[in-house]
């Protein structure tokens, strides 16, 4: 095995490792976003429950910046419902992307798992130089 060959192998391994860590970062980011949306969904559902309990003539205000603006109960209700719908759709989308990423990650992991052995076998200490 020539040294240029070994270097090629090393480079390939590095690339694969970088890809894998990038994927892992993406997955972690996805989880964070998911968490945020889940919290928002919960809060919105609580608000909707509260709005449903109100009487028809209840005064509802929406905080827009520093101002409280009076809003129709029906309008507020529709707004919250729409937001729940949007967040649910977004969560579903995130679910499918995370599934995708995890599949990719697993296949990358498998290919990488076979690597160290072969490399160590042929390159010996060279492997650790990179």
């Amino acid at each position, binding site marked *: 095995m020539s040294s240029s060959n070994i270097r090629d192998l090393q480079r390939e391994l590095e690339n694969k490792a970088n890809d894998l860590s990038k994927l892992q970062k993406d997955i972690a980011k996805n989880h964070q976003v998911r968490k945020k949306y889940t919290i928002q969904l919960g*809060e*919105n559902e*609580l*608000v909707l429950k509260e709005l449903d309990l*109100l009487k028809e003539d*209840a005064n509802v*205000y*929406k905080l*827009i910046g520093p101002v409280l603006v009076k809003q129709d109960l029906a309008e507020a209700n529709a707004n919250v419902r729409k*937001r729940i719908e949007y967040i649910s759709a977004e969560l579903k989308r995130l679910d499918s992307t995370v599934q995708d990423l995890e599949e990719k990650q697993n296949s990358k992991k498998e290919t990488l798992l076979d690597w160290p052995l072969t490399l160590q076998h042929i390159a010996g200490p060279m492997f650790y130089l990179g």
Partner: protein
Amino acid sequence: MASSKSASGAMTLERMSVEQLKAVKEQADMEVNLLQDSLTNIGTATTRLELATTALNDLSLRSHGSKILVPLTASLYVPATLQDPHHVLVDIGTGYFVEKTMPEGKDYCERKINLLKSNFDQLVEVASKKKNVADDAGIILQAKLKQLASSS
């Protein structure tokens, strides 16, 4: 029934390798910590709602035209008179506020506190179960490590 179930759980833990056990323990510890954090958060939220309830009770005892000091910042208060002791504005989340009468406001706080309490109880149960798993994994891990040390 429950004892046989936990015994089979311990059995699967005993069959695991040291690395697997470490991973299981780490995972369980992390989850326990997360649950503990959630419990603390629920505790603070409950305290705040209880404070709000006391404030409402206090407010409902005042009559129209009472002198009050309104906090503009944490350290600046301005004198004012109480216009309407019968209505309160309740923040129900995500920027929505609802005008409620005094009893409705108290009812709101009570409902929220009850909701939080039931969540708290559920979480305590989950957390103690997780803690048991973590402890079991820790004990078996220790035993395995001792075994390894003595055999080598």
